């Protein structure tokens, strides 16, 4: 018998066990033939297969599955019940007269600004005292600080 085939049989049996149903499909038939002629090659794998058969069986998952599906469904219902559809609110459209009034006010402000810009001074906008006083320190009243400190000292 081909030594390569026997070597392959030993590799396959060591990996997949003695049950040909678990062997790779493409190699199964020729390996089965080789195994029939060399049954002792399967002995150890048979034992391991038997031992694995003694492993515990997983418990049923029906309960967990049902619980999971309930949670998914309830999640959807909870989301749906949280959504309250409100009637769409129609905002009153401003009347045309109000729109014109606002536009006229803005235009007047712009014209006044341009007019002020053409003048050399804006002093006439302030009271005569304020307009005449150019000293910012005096305006802040800080000039009196030294007198105050002397009084305190």
């Amino acid at each position, binding site marked *: 018998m081909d030594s390569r085939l026997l070597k392959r049989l030993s*590799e*396959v049996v*060591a*990996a*997949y*066990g003695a049950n040909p*149903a*678990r062997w*790779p*499909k493409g190699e199964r038939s020729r390996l089965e033939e080789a195994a029939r002629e060399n049954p002792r090659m399967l002995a*150890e*794998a048979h*034992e*391991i*297969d*038997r*031992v*694995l*058969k*003694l*492993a*515990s*069986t*997983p*418990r049923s*998952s029906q309960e*967990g*599955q049902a619980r*999971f*599906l309930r949670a*998914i*469904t309830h999640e*959807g219902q909870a989301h749906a019940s949280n959504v309250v559809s409100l009637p769409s609110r129609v905002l009153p459209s401003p009347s045309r007269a109000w729109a014109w009034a606002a536009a006229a006010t803005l235009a007047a402000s712009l014209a006044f600004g341009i007019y002020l810009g053409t003048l050399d001074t804006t002093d006439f906008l302030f009271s005569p005292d304020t307009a005449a006083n150019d000293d910012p320190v005096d305006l802040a009243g800080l000039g009196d600080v030294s007198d105050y400190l002397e009084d305190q000292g």
Partner: protein
Amino acid sequence: MRGEEGAKAAAGTSDLLADADDGALLSAAARRNRAAFARLVARHYDMVHRVTWRITSGHADTEDIVQDAFLKLWNNPLQVRDSGALRSWLIRVASNLAIDRARRKSPLDIDSLPEPDDDAPSALERTIAEGSANQVDRAIASLPDRQRLALVLIHFEGQSNIQAAAAMEVSVEAIESLLGRARRALKERLKDHWREILEDFGKLGR
């Protein structure tokens, strides 16, 4: 009359969903169709649960891990690009979650493994089965993660080497190597009780 029509329509929809392939169900689930997603859950939940149960050795986290995997799917069904590989995707996500959790927590307390299902017909058989099952379970639980997963997919789930390789994102050669090492390690770990376990197997007439 309208109720009857509604019931017929619902039954028709249910039939359609039952026949729909994973790709169609994933597309529908992406449009938040809960019935389609429920169909996917019904189709794959048991398999993912069995694999996770064996990876975690029946740890109490099993249910959470399986549900986390399905929740990831529900949150973005279109992340499964190849709908034909949904099973592989679910196994990969669930096994990664299981391995991550196991690494974050303290090492698995093998003595706390759950009792096997009560399906043995007599007290004697139950005692034998429990004794051997516990030893085998412990040996499987002590295998490295990837060896254990390969063994679970091929030996317990009956997946082909190509399916298992896709789920684990490794080559078929790597799957064979992992399986071979897993089986050798199993025998090595159980060598002191090997004959007793095989005798137990004989007594159970399995």
